């Protein structure tokens, strides 16, 4: 009988590194193309600087913004709200989703609410939240947690219900008795991939909701800055803000993605 060759943790690592490299290259190329087209439009069409400032001006403004400590504080405030809210919402989502998704009562209650409430956009809660919470931090946190909660809970329910019954049987044979132990040792880990997808989507939702919440009703944070800048018609600043928001969005996504990649969850059972 032939002994199989050793699989390489090497091979998958190399693959991952190649992917990352490809992503970086794509991002850089994309950036170059966008800036390139931008510059061409500015040179070719000569729009007024009020409408479309050249890239150089915008980057200069960006530099000024970043140099300002007030702005940096706003960024940090927003970041904290987003990450905290997302963490709270995700945790709650995982717990509620994975537990309620299993009980019959939970299924009955959750199914319609997850399906219907999904249409009642989280932001509709903003007015209520602002009345309830006023300008407090709690309000912003509520919005960001809410945004993550539903998607994570939804994915958790799916994940926990779609567990391969073979895994459950194997678990029972190996001594996993009782619903709670089964939930902890088998269902929850097995739902890992779905849950991870959920929290990856969740950070995006939380980020958008935070921006909206800050634009509507807040005293500090990037959203406020964006809102006020729009009043002043300083296009360069507004565009600089767009860049900042984009970068933060990308950074958040990357952060969560690399967090997820550290965990050994793999998709599907063997």
């Amino acid at each position, binding site marked *: *009988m032939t002994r199989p060759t050793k*699989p390489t943790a090497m091979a998958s690592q190399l693959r991952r590194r190649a992917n990352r490299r490809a992503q970086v290259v794509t991002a850089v190329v994309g950036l170059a193309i966008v800036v390139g087209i931008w510059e061409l439009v500015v040179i070719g069409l000569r729009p007024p600087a009020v409408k479309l400032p050249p890239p150089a001006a915008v980057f200069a403004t960006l530099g000024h913004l970043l140099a300002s400590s007030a702005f940096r504080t706003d960024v940090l405030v927003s970041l904290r709200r987003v990450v905290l809210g997302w963490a709270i919402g995700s945790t709650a989502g995982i717990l509620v989703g994975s537990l309620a998704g299993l009980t019959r009562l939970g299924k009955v209650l959750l199914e319609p609410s997850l399906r219907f409430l999904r249409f009642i956009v989280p932001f509709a809660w903003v007015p209520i939240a602002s009345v309830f919470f006023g300008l407090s931090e709690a309000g912003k946190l509520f919005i960001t947690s809410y945004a993550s909660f539903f998607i994570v809970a939804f994915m958790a329910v799916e994940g926990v219900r779609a567990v391969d019954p073979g*895994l459950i049987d*194997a678990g029972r*044979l190996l001594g996993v008795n009782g619903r709670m132990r089964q939930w902890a040792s*088998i269902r929850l880990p097995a739902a890992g991939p779905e849950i991870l997808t959920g929290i990856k989507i969740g950070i995006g939702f939380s980020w958008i909701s935070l921006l909206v919440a800050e634009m509507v009703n807040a005293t500090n944070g990037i959203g406020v800055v964006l809102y006020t800048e729009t009043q002043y018609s300083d296009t360069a600043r507004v565009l600089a803000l767009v860049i900042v928001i984009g970068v933060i969005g990308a950074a958040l996504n990357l952060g969560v993605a690399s967090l997820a990649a550290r965990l050994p*969850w793999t998709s*599907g059972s*063997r």
Partner: protein
Amino acid sequence: MGRAALQEDGHTPTADRTPGAGRERAAGPAGHDLAAGTGLVGEVPPGARLIVEDVGKVWGSGAREVVALKDVNFQVRPDEFLCVIGPSGCGKSTILHIIAGLRPASMGRVLYQGREVHGPHADIGMVFQSPSLFPWKTVEKNVEFGMKNLGVPRPERKERVEELLDLVGLVEFGQAYPRELSGGMAQRVAVARALATRPELLLMDEPFGALDAQTREDLQIELVRIWSERSSSVVFVTHSVQEAVYLADRVLVVTQRPGRVSEIIDVPLPRPRDVTSEEFRIVMKAAYRALSDVRSGASGSGETEPGQR
């Protein structure tokens, strides 16, 4: 009859095994004894590790009721390799699931070492058609899982895992994840995992069904080797008559639904077996004949005793 060659020197239990009924076993976490809830029932027929008695299984109810099994009776001796064959859908898997305690029988009972089976039991291990390895655990952690639940202390676990991985030939793959393994390799890990709790009865539900012919043959040879080193009882369900005759001491033939044991065929050939030999062919012919009888509905008698032809 029996595995003459292997039985030469008698039955040698491995070092830490205590013979006799009711082995002491480390209590699992919170004093949980996996064998709890069973009780000694009457007299134990000598030499039977597993008794399947009048077992029946009914699915559904009322108009949609389906009788999958009815009056299934057979026994398995210690250190015996039993194969179960039968037409598709006759309930072979169901029998295994009932023995394992994963599904309840509608009628009858299963006695393991004289105790009635109510639920999964530490002494009974099972390997399924798909390996069902936990994808979030490494190979080592998969194999270790059952032992952990039993409260086996760490150093001993580590030792046993190494021993088992060596047994199935996958020592270098301890840190690999299931998705990195081929089908055959994953199935071997599944076997190692099932053996980790030192079960004295191993149930196997068409474990090689999803593998290609070459791997399948390799694993059959491996299985015989592992089994002879471990000496536990095995009940192995398969579609392949050749596989059954190659592996088993006795072959059970199950009828179509409602399934019951129609015949038991002895395979008194020494191991390792030569599939091309005349004796092998004879036994296979008998098995094929039994199978076609069952398929056409002309099944044999219901109850058979071990050793009876």
